[in-house]
């Protein structure tokens, strides 16, 4: 991964020096090795903090909403899964494609520091990845871990290693094939009785502290004015009235992004309460696939989407959920 990082840094320098782009969006070092943060670099000097390691799980595409409207071109590093969000934002006219230079980068799956900590390792100083195994160095020594066990939730059910958009690429090693298990957890929820499912979600959603991290990170949540911030919408105050309304926040949000969510998994990654929010979105995706044929939001930056278009072969409401006509 070191070689990829170096190549990316080198390319970022070139682009800024030559004036081809006015800024590069990537990751910069955090306080620790394991907390790099998204950043915009406008000078070669600023690139001193540039980093790309196993903890760069963040999806950078949403930063383009502001950046692509600024003067000059913006270069951005996108992992395969981030490229879906990028396309979806282009499709919804939220970002200006002409002002962006997309550098498709290699991703071998990103790591979850919480899962490493859960293995009893603290004060991580460096991580070296080698195929299926990961060597974690800390102030207290080195530990070899099985990579599959410490992957981010979203990477454990990776939906593909193909970039849906790119102007150039930095891919130095082969990337593992996608893991097609993303509906397994949804199927488990579907197998529950209504009461069990209600209890499951009630337990999960009552942990919510309404920090809004899920909404703020979500590339599909790009409204100029969110209904939850809008006193005139009539639901803003209700959403934090009581426990029940709290759950409505997440359910309304899931409805708002239905058909547009690319399943990038950022909502669950950033949730400080570890609520599996992505399952709500995945349930929608699974239903849409079932009702209208397979559809992956962000696969292209144009074309029709099942929920906002009509074809004669669309399922009849009566048959939609496999029920009998009443």
């Amino acid at each position, binding site marked *: 991964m070191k070689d990829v990082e170096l190549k990316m840094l080198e390319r970022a320098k070139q682009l800024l020096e030559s004036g081809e782009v006015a800024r590069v969006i990537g990751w910069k070092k955090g306080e620790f090795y394991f907390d790099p943060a998204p950043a915009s670099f406008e000078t070669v000097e600023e690139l001193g903090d540039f980093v790309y390691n196993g903890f760069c799980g963040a999806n950078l595409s949403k930063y383009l909403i502001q950046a692509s*409207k600024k003067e000059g071109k913006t270069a951005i590093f996108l992992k395969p899964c981030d490229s879906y969000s990028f396309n979806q934002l282009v*499709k*919804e*006219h*939220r970002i200006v494609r002409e002002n962006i230079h997309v550098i498709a980068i290699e991703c071998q799956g990103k790591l979850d520091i919480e899962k490493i900590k859960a293995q009893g390792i603290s004060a991580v100083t460096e991580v070296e990845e080698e195929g299926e195994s990961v060597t974690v160095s800390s102030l207290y020594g080195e530990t070899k871990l099985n990579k599959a066990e410490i992957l981010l939730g979203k990477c454990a059910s990776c939906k593909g290693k193909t970039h849906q958009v790119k102007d150039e690429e930095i891919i130095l090693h082969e990337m593992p094939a996608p893991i097609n298990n993303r509906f397994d957890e949804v199927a488990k929820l579907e197998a529950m009785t209504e009461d069990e499912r209600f209890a499951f979600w009630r337990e999960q959603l009552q942990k919510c502290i309404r920090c809004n991290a899920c909404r703020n990170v979500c590339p599909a949540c*790009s*409204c*100029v*004015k*969110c*209904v939850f911030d*809008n006193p005139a*919408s*009539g639901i803003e105050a209700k959403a934090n009235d009581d426990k029940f309304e709290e759950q409505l926040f997440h359910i309304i949000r899931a409805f*708002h*992004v239905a058909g547009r969510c690319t399943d990038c998994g950022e909502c669950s990654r950033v949730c400080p309460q570890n609520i599996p929010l992505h399952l709500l979105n995945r349930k929608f995706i699974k239903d849409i696939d079932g009702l209208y044929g397979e559809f992956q939001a962000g696969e292209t930056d144009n074309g*029709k*989407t099942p929920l*906002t*278009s009509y074809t*004669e072969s669309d399922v009849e409401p009566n048959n939609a959920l496999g029920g009998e006509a009443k």
Partner: protein
Amino acid sequence: MQRIGVFICWCGSNIAATVDVKKVAETIKSEPGVVYSENYQYMCSENGQQLIKQAIKEHNLTGIVVGSCSPRMHEATFRKTAEAAGLNPYMVEIANIREHCSWIHKDMDEATEKAIVLVRTAIAKVKLNAPLQAGESPVVKRALVIGGGIAGIQAALDIADAGFEVDIVEKNATIGGRMAQLDKTFPTLDCSACILTPKMVDCAQHEKIDILSYSEVEEVKGFVGNFNVKIRRKARYVDETKCTGCKICMEKCPSKKGLNTFNMGLNNRPAIHIPFAQAIPNVAVIDPEQCIKLKTGKCGICQKFCGAGAIDYEQKDTFVEREYGAIVVATGFKPIALDNFNEYGYAENKDVITSLELERLMNAAGPTDGVLLRPSDGKHPKVITFIQCVGSRDTSGCGKPYCSKICCMYTAKHAMLIREKYPDTEVHVFYIDVRTPGKNYDEFYRRAVEQYGVDYIKGMVGKVYNENGKLMVQGSNLIDNEQITIESDLVVLATAIEPEPSIRKVATLLTASIDTNNFLTESHAKLRPVESPTAGVYLAGVCQGPKDIPETVSQASACAAKVIGLLAKDKLKTNPCVAVPDEMMCNGCSQCANVCAYGAITYVDKEFRLGGGKTEIRRVASVNPAVCQGCGACTVTCPSGTMDLKGFSSKQIMSEVEAICKK
């Protein structure tokens, strides 16, 4: 401060028998904002309307709620009433306490309670109503007629005679439709061709009529007065402007084994053909499935012989886009498939035929030149048995639940014509009931029985089977209470009719509603029978329900009258209840434009102040109020709630919901 008046209608006993209207009016008096509440026997009557007008003036009302029938019935009436009293017509709300309440409930206490809730709901809404002004939109003075059968022809001729341009779009190669296939027509027995073909010629020669044959409607945009229609002109591989209809191509074509669909498949026709001698336009068409040249690239004989140089194997489908003010749907019917009726042996026996096939066998221009010869061996049938209601009035699910309406009369016609022409022929008719309502209809049927000696047997047929070359028709005679078997030479099935299957596509394109049997629904079964609930769309012929030629022609002329009434106007009042975006919140994401069925939403780049002297250019939605039909699809699609609908704002709807839920 709002001053709301509430008017509860008895609708005679329609509402008052199930809802305690006095109690409703009394209870509502104490609702906040209500300053007047009254009940009256017929609120829509002149006295009732007078009562409303007076109250508006005397009590200085700012909004009114009428608890009455469906707004579809009298909303327009009460809006006019309010306007006459000086109140903005959009400050009127209807609480539907008839269809939504009295008609569907039996218990008076429960119905009364529900009526009170419904009125409260309307009050909650009217409090948030804002005065609206209707706009205007121009009317395109041209009509589209979909379907070139007798219904379409009649409608087109009447509209064109009034001076408006009409296009007929016909999916087949010629206009004429089903009527062109018929032999004689009841009850007067005129020859169908003799009365139809002159009308077809009139269409072709009318300077205001344009016939687009071999064409189909592909896309419909817009709304009443301003439809934009894309029409596919299917490749006929013959240049319509050059073909003279000389038929030399038909003679020379080596591929002659295509089923002649005009003759119901009773004989064959060449790959290149003119459907029938009086076809309009009198232009050949090539069946690409059958043409050797189009299938293998080798042949080209018709091209060699065509003196006019009209053959063009390279022809492709083309599209034309035109604007129309009104659309008449006249897509007609087809006999049902008989797959579910094996008992009649239609598939196994050539001499079991449908009535439409018999029409062709008796037609002078048909496959037997009008001599009645049975299909199996070309001999004269001596015993003919008719079976009525094949697939009609069928509640078993195999056929259609409705009466096809035309079969009793045409069967009597067939029986009579056969007895007249071939008096040595024995004719039996199995029937459930003989239905002959219509001018001179029962007289016609009686003539068949009394004068021509047709043997009518009340009863149903259980089975038709072949025994030694004879068709054995086994049925019951309910009058004599016995089982009988009739040894027949020919069996004719009076097959049920159903709407032409392409109706589903047409209905979808026009957003016209359709019933469970695929018939288009009219706006009001009694009072608006030729209008579709979709404004500007009119219905003629069997697409709306089974009917015979006289009725179809009447309906087509009625359609024409409606269309002329519309096209005679220069401008139409538009519905002011249209969508409106809040530009400050709009993301410009295009989702609303994607769901807009009318193409009313476009996007503009606008500059917005961000504060601190900065500005930002954003792409925001813009609604064309003349095009928007107020369906509300955009308002529910917009994730940020930018889109709202005037007269049906999200706030109004939420306050209605709250009024219903409040205990």
